[in-house]
């Protein structure tokens, strides 16, 4: 047992910190810290800075222009980025589609699409979820019918994150309705400019507009945009999901959130003394901090297993459940910490006019609390994850 990072890993962490200090624009980190919505330009800017340093595709092999970092390096990088309030790298092209194309795509597809992900020419979004499908992904209904050189796509996708910025969408479509649910699905790449595609924003309960519904009406997609083989899409989808679940514990976000919570609890006064000295509140913070300390080791244990070449299995489900509970608890405590100033709704549109409504740190916290209710729902809800854990446990395969 050695709980410390190696000298090499510590040096890497220093290198990452120095890079963030020098290259992360302060107006971007200010926006992230304040919980403001990032524009497409904001995302593109950070994307380009990372690309210039060669640190954009941290999970890709070098042959495709990636950094080819191991799991420990990726963890350190993501943790430092979260702590520095760097924008989140939009994952759809880089951590979802990229690995699928590298493993299952044709040479032509790899040569065309992968460089465009790196240089920002394409903004990808995900066409998995459908109304009525949700966590039961395999019940999806959007159809693609072969017609000469094209597939003709009809149906509806939903919860398409940042689809309003995207020019490309990767979709799961049903190409054979006559077989078992999982067997008739294909993986298609679709240009959002194609006639017959309509995008409508879904306003979330915190007032944000980050997800969308996407409709397809007789959308003609060239057959060369099929990834892998027809009707084998479920295999690729599952492969993608294992990549979606990297950094699933979100310990960096929790650590940054805990720092912010403590800062706020020191600034707030309750009953004549700092809130952080209030025994009840201090106990609540301590409890979640203790959970997070253990979680960081749990995460590192999984990462070190992955770094030694073992595929993450049920562990990623465990990390998702515990990681989201901890993040949501920190969001909840932060909301409580600001007292009555959690009540104002200060939207982006009126933020400028409403400086002076309580302390600056109070403004985003209730919105973040409500918005982050989603993290235990999306990407396979916590209930689905628990099913996976339980089934594996029943087979005696948890370690």
């Amino acid at each position, binding site marked *: 047992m050695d709980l410390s990072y190696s000298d090499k890993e510590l040096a890497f962490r220093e290198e990452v910190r120095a890079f963030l200090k020098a290259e992360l624009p302060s107006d971007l980190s200010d926006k992230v810290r304040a919980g403001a919505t990032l524009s497409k330009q904001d995302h593109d800017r950070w994307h380009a800075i990372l690309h210039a340093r060669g640190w954009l595709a941290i999970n890709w092999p070098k042959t495709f222009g990636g950094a080819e970092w191991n799991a420990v390096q990726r963890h350190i990088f993501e943790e430092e980025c979260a702590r520095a309030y760097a924008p989140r790298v939009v994952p759809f092209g880089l951590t979802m589609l990229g690995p699928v194309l590298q493993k299952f795509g044709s040479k032509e597809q790899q040569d065309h699409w992968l460089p465009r992900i790196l240089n920002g020419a394409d903004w990808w979004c995900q066409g998995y979820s459908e109304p009525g499908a949700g966590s039961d992904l395999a019940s999806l209904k959007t159809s693609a019918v072969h017609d000469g050189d094209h597939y003709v796509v009809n149906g509806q996708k939903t919860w398409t994150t940042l689809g309003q910025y995207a020019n490309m969408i990767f979709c799961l479509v049903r190409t054979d309705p006559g077989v078992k649910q999982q067997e008739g699905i294909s993986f298609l790449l679709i240009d959002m400019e194609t006639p017959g595609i309509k995008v409508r924003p879904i306003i979330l309960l915190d007032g944000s507009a980050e997800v969308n519904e996407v409709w397809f009406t007789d959308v003609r997609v060239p057959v060369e945009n099929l990834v892998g083989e027809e009707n084998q899409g479920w295999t690729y989808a599952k492969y993608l999901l294992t990549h979606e679940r990297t950094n699933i514990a979100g310990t960096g976000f929790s650590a940054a959130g805990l720092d912010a919570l403590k800062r706020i609890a020191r600034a707030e006064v309750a009953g004549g003394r700092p809130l952080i000295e209030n025994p009840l509140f201090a106990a609540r913070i301590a409890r979640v901090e203790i959970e997070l300390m253990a979680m960081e080791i749990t995460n590192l244990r999984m990462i070190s297993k992955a770094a030694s070449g073992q595929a993450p299995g049920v562990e990623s489900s465990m990390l998702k459940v515990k990681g989201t509970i901890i993040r949501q608890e920190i969001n909840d405590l932060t*909301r409580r910490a600001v007292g009555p100033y959690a009540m104002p*709704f200060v939207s982006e549109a009126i933020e400028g006019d409403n400086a002076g409504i309580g302390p600056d740190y109070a403004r985003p916290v209730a919105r973040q609390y409500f918005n982050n209710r989603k993290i235990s729902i999306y990407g396979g809800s916590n209930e689905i994850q628990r099913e996976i854990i339980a089934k594996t446990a029943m087979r005696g395969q948890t370690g």
Partner: protein
Amino acid sequence: MNFELTEERRMLQDSLRRFLADKYTTQVRNQILDSTAGLSATIWSQMADLGVIGALLGEDKGGFGGTGFDITTVFEELGRAGVVEPFLDTAILGAGLIAELGTDDHAGILEDVMAGSVHLAFAHGEPTSRYDLNIVATTAQNRGDHYVLNGRKSVVVNAEAADHLVVSARTSGDVDDQNGILLFLVPSDADGLELNGYPLISGGRAAEIVMDGLVLPQDALLGSEGNGFDAIEKCVAMANVALIAEALGAMETAARLTLDYLGTRTQFGRPIGSFQVLAHRMADVFIELKQARSAVILAAGHLEADRVTRERHVSAAKHLIGRVGKLVAEESIQMHGGIAMTQEYELAHIAKRIVMIDHRFGDTDHHLERFIALGADQLAGRSGTAATTA
């Protein structure tokens, strides 16, 4: 033992429930939420005609209710329908304080409030007072024939729509003294009063208020010098009883919507409610709701008791409702999945109201500490005004 509502209250409950089910639809509510007024004047006057405001005031003030169970009967229905109109601010707090401290001169205002033609707001909380009712930094200087007020008030709900504000200020004592706090009736268009309004997350509007050399005549003082705190504590107890009843009604709506959803939404070929993990969690929600209703009944039944008994029951209930409210709101969203995250679905609004009730007049932790402190007082035989803060 009799836990039935009286005939009059049941009639009020029925007519209010019917009215709101007909008129306060999701579509209507969403229009009100999007409006810059933050409330519907039409709904307000129709509900005043129904006697909703009169039911919240005692007979000696021209109303026909005003007890704990009158308040819970009305507010449970307001919560059930997710009403954002400021009955709490105008009728319980504003009118309650005027009724408590005012003279015959103020009877006209109360009549107008009951008729639905006057709005009120209670400007008490300050940027650093959090949930402590005794912290008042705003000063009132007695200049013989007039007072001069200076200070700031924060998150004053319904301030912009209010015709009059009930404003707290102190003439003496340290910033956290219970003694020395006075209440003034201030016209909202008074010189020296500046309002900065904004919408609230759970609907409705509030404002930050700055008073800079606000001059008030002698007769703006409500009651006499020095008795402000007791009246504030009493009316805030009424407000907390209203809030817990509202939360109860809202939680029942959240539970009903969730139950419906579990029965209709299918995944993996069957209704999701047939999955035992969800069915058991729904059962926990119903168990907690039973407890929540008992806590509301208990607090409402002790609203007219002596101070420490009253306050202990209020804090007990606000603590329990804060805990159960978070559970019900979060479980309802989780069991619904993505749909509950969307603004236009009714549950989103209901969940926000439940959670935000914890931020008015003391959250679950604040009231737990207060419950402990008041219990220690009771044991020590202190029934005075100690232990009002956590």
